[in-house]
């Protein structure tokens, strides 16, 4: 690669998180994510994947070490609307139209109304939901709701997008479509993204790198560079090159998982 190496966007040094109850969620985690990079994070259930995202969002405090976003504490990056979060559930407010849901972050930030509307129109168009702007969330399918949730996250044009197993509850096909959608949006805007998933295929499809975390307390057990060409689409999943990377990730994940044969939480 002759491109200049982009600056680190997210950096963790010796990051540890211990919950008030005494549970050690993450321990001694060192991580550098470069600007514009798409990092997939995978690991056994309860390994602290989500906790890592929540620390990066400034929603949970680090109890040891340091995590910075663009060189700042996460709360400060968040305050200038540089960070957005896509939750496991669509988390749309049922009493608001899709449009009103999508512009919520700007409304809360007291952005002028005209600007809110323009940005929400654009974000809905981006995910192909323009014609449903007036619809109530209850009128939409699960996939459409998740798309709206994605539009809401992107409405403030964040530099860092944190995705916490956002498509985990969707059926296979919808999930493929949404992964393609996410890839398309990422290729277009090149925000930095951290995507937590429990699917090996999803991790390999999305990530420039796949970070494999160990069982609690979460430590990085592997940081696998995915050298598959971009743009990638879900169709890539069947190719031999893909299978080779997926096999490597799966092997590392298996080694990281606790020795519990009944643990079905790791899917492919």
């Amino acid at each position: 690669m002759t491109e200049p190496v982009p600056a680190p966007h997210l950096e963790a040094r010796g990051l540890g998180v211990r919950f008030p109850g005494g549970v050690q969620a993450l321990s001694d985690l060192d991580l550098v994510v470069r600007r514009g990079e798409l990092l997939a994070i995978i690991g056994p259930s309860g390994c602290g994947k989500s906790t890592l995202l929540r620390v990066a969002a400034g929603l949970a405090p680090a109890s040891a070490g340091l995590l910075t976003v663009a060189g700042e504490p996460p709360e400060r990056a968040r305050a200038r609307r540089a960070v957005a979060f896509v939750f496991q559930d669509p988390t749309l407010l049922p009493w608001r139209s899709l449009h009103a849901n999508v512009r919520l972050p700007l409304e809360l930030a007291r952005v002028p109304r005209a600007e809110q509307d323009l940005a929400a129109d654009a974000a809905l168009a981006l995910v192909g939901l323009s014609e449903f702007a007036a619809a109530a969330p209850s009128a939409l399918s699960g996939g459409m709701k998740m798309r709206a949730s994605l539009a809401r996250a992107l409405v403030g044009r964040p530099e860092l997008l944190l995705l916490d197993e956002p498509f985990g509850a969707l059926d296979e096909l919808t999930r493929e479509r949404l992964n393609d959608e996410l890839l398309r949006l990422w290729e277009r805007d090149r925000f930095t993204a951290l995507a937590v998933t429990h699917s090996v295929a999803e991790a390999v499809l999305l990530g420039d790198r796949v970070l494999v975390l160990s069982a609690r307390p979460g430590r990085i057990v592997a940081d696998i560079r995915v050298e598959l060409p971009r743009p990638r689409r879900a169709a890539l999943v069947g190719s031999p090159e893909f299978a080779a990377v997926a096999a490597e990730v799966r092997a590392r994940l298996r080694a990281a998982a606790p020795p519990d044969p009944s643990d079905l939480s790791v899917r492919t």
Partner: protein
Amino acid sequence: MKLASAARAAYPPLLVFLGFLGLWQLACAALALPTYLVPTPAEVARQAVEHAGELAQAALLTAIGALGGLGASLLVGGLVAVLFSQSRTAARSLYPYAIFLQTVPIVAVAPLIVVWFGTGLQSVILTAAILSVFPIITNGTTGLVRVDPQLLELFAMSDASRLQLLLKLRLPGSLPYFVAGAKISGGLAVIGAIVGEFFAGFGADDLGLGALILQTSGRLQTAYLFAAIFAATLLGLVLFGAVALLGELALRRWRGRELSVH
């Protein structure tokens, strides 16, 4: 379609009611009960028709008292619920007194209300409000406090202020709980209004159902009394239905209706 299913739903209880009336009529005839003790349904109906004007007038007065009480409950109960949701200290120190509203025997307190506020509509409304405010407080507080933690994090991502959280998340999110509370309170407000009228009845020319019940029972006009009791029951049902309908309308957007964009 909806009307047809409503009619189907109303069919069995209606049949039970008619059967009950038939049995009642037969029992009166068979046991030769005196009318001042147990009037026949036919006699009750006759009295209801004869006093239709007075009954309607009384029901209207009672309805005003009950609606006033329910309105006051919604307002005060809503404010108390907001206070409880915003301050754990306030909730801890005041909730036992809210329970007091639920457990206080209203019949015992109503005379005191009359002593303090005199006879008339204000005392009726106050009695109805005291009896009906508790479900609003508990349901409302639950709705305001019970918020999906992911939604709280969503708002935290925008560094939402406490006021924004209240106005844009907690209050709209608690609407189903307030509706559920209001449905219970609607019936209680009617009971409260009638009890209130027992003690604070508006005077001889201005009888609510409560005062009418008291008067007719005093005069052994038992059939008329029965008619007044049925009117009171009907009023409670109508109020419950109205509250339920309004609640459904308010919650329609939650259940998949097109909304306006701007």
